[in-house]
């Protein structure tokens, strides 16, 4: 059984296309993109629609509609996207249409609809495609694994994306600790206009702005997008999904994710259907070890703690991290001793101690002047703090309050 959220992407939730009792094929569209910044949602099991349930959405933090599909007996029948096949046959626009039809979103975790990134707005020119193979988080190894096992497919996906964007250059950025993936990707990219660049292993190397800077020395403006410096960034997992959609007509109904942490008996990298319940995945790897404290969607630095094991995974769930009580233990909470480690650690050159202070004093306008909205919430400051101060917690809250006060409320 799967429960597929209609809000499985950034932007507006998809419009429901099925009703209780409908028989659906694998890959059949069950939710239609509602507007440009939205994405299609497909059945990730062939079977019967059992209904539409409201489930607490791990990112939106409120109950959202999810389509419940019960698997039927026998071999699953696909409903593929037409047309599909060798991408050279298609115009860039047709490629983007296939990608939109397949409901592909950023699989690194942000879940931003991929087709939107492939159509730069008027006046913006893209000259470089950056592929993120830096693995955004510690603990997670899914991108690493994918680069080892699906390198040829990823490179094909990169070429599809280059075609769609009309760029002649792409760089794959991989952290130096994944040397086998570097070799593998280099071998596959030989003779292609795709460069494989080795990056220093340091968190948060996989963060978009930091990755672009490390590879090209281009600085994305504060409040801006990679587009502003002529770059589009895609995760290796997304490239694989693009390849599957364009060459084989498969909509995005499954993804790879890492199950990890000291709180699980066995760790694994799995291919999982979108909408699979967390409990199903955990049972598959042998369940919990002792002393479990929390279960995260994503990695330990930026992951979201889920409230229930019945939460279905999303398109952007790159990992399920189960942490034990020992793993989450921090130092005793004290006042800031101004050691300046957070200032050193911040990849955005912010002063986390100051943002924390201003946020706690509710001086939101001053916090914004100090760059509050530039915080990428990577967690480096809170990780390093010897006083156990939770900068990211106050920053996240301050951002929300500031947006609400300004009248925006949107994420």
């Amino acid at each position, binding site marked *: 059984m799967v429960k597929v959220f209609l809000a499985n992407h950034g932007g507006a939730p998809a419009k429901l296309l099925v009703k209780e009792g409908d028989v659906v094929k694998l890959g059949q569209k069950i939710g239609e993109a509602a507007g440009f910044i939205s994405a299609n949602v497909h059945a990730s099991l062939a079977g019967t629609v059992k209904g539409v349930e409201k489930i607490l959405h791990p990112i939106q933090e409120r109950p959202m509609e999810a389509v419940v599909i019960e698997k039927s007996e026998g071999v699953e029948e696909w409903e593929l996207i037409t047309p599909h096949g060798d991408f050279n046959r298609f115009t860039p626009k047709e490629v983007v249409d296939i990608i939109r039809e397949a409901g592909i979103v950023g699989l690194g975790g942000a879940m931003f609809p991929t087709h939107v990134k492939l159509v730069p707005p008027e006046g913006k020119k893209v000259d470089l495609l950056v592929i993120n193979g830096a693995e955004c988080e510690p603990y997670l190894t899914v991108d690493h694994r994918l680069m080892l096992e699906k390198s040829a497919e990823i490179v094909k996906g990169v070429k599809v994306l280059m075609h769609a964007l009309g760029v002649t250059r792409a760089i794959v950025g991989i952290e130096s600790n994944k040397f086998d993936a570097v070799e593998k990707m280099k071998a596959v990219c030989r003779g292609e206009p795709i460069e494989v660049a080795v990056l220093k292993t340091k968190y948060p190397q996989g963060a978009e702005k930091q990755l672009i800077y490390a590879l090209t020395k281009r*600085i994305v*403006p*504060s*409040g801006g997008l990679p587009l*502003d410096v002529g770059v589009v960034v895609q995760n290796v997992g997304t490239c694989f999904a693009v390849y599957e959609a364009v060459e084989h007509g498969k909509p995005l109904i499954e993804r790879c994710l890492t199950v990890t942490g000291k709180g699980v008996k066995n760790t694994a990298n799995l291919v999982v259907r979108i909408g699979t319940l967390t409990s199903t995945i955990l049972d598959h790897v042998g369940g919990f070890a002792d002393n479990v404290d929390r279960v995260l969607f994503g990695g330990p630095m930026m992951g979201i703690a889920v409230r229930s094991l019945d939460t279905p995974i999303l398109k952007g769930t790159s990992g399920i991290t189960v942490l034990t009580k020992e793993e989450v233990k921090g*130092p005793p909470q*004290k006042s800031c001793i101004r050691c300046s480690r957070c200032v050193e650690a911040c990849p955005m050159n912010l*002063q986390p101690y100051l943002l924390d202070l201003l946020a706690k004093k509710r001086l939101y306008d001053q916090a914004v002047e100090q*760059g509050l909205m530039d915080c990428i919430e990577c967690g480096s400051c809170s990780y390093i703090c010897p006083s156990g101060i939770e900068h990211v917690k106050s920053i996240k809250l301050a951002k929300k309050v500031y947006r609400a006060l300004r009248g925006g409320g949107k994420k």
Partner: protein
Amino acid sequence: MKLNVATSPHIKSTDSVFKIMTDVILALVPALIAAVYFFGVRALLLAVLGIVGGETIEIFIMRYIRGVRDFKPDGSAAVTGLLLAMNVNVGLPLWVFITGLIAALVLGKHVYGGLGKNPFNPALVGRVFLLVSFPSYMTTWWAPKYWKLEALTTATPLGLLKEGGASAVNFSYSQLFLGNVGGCLGEVSTLALIIGFLYLVFRKRIKILIPISYLGVVLILSSIFWMVNPERFGDPLLHLLSGGLMLGALFMATDMVTTPMTPKGHLIFGAGCGVITMVIRYFAGYPEGVSFSILIMNSLTPLIDIYTRPKVFGEDMGVRGR
């Protein structure tokens, strides 16, 4: 089963305030050993009194005056106590020392709200309190007599320089470097202080740019003045190796709480300390100006922080709608 829900990040480094303070104390051990070697076991007595007394006073203040009944020591008061001990001479009466310790923790720290809230280095507040209240006790210098404690008094190199010019300084550089001179417990052996400093650098427990710019500015200024008038101003090596400069630059000016937060701020802070120290040494009534220079720069720390705000990544590229 019950799952915990909290904001990211979900893992933390195992660092803590207590570990930082422990490292600072460990870094002062070489200087303490040197002090005991040159001044006798009374030096050890003062150091232990500083550590134990400091923590005891802080526990009392926190639990019974500020009402934090479950207060657990974080080691910061021990550091203050030990640093104060390093900043007094070996013959200081114990009751005077304890008075200074109370002044350091009450006037220097807890009146402002305790850990992390104090604008001035508490140990220096204690030292200056003693210097003003008990000038004769504080400026009686004891000759290093190895394991014997003798009531002999001697002048410090900087005192001699102030009184009689460079030719009156009868110490060799190796004496100054190793610590065979009169002075406070912690300021005699440059070598021992540098060993401790290297430990802190190795453990990444120190704002390293502060001592670099502090000592750099002292070196530059003293070189210039030395070239102008060697007899009156003394040579750069004498200035670097004597007085409280090394102790101040390596351990007092690098106190985390009372110093700026950015690399640029650290450079300005250290340079300011260097200039003020040399101005006092050359032109003021006191032979030594390290304590005052650091305290003055402490008071400028908030201002330095405001003017050295780092450029946010992408800020120069034109801010768009946030």
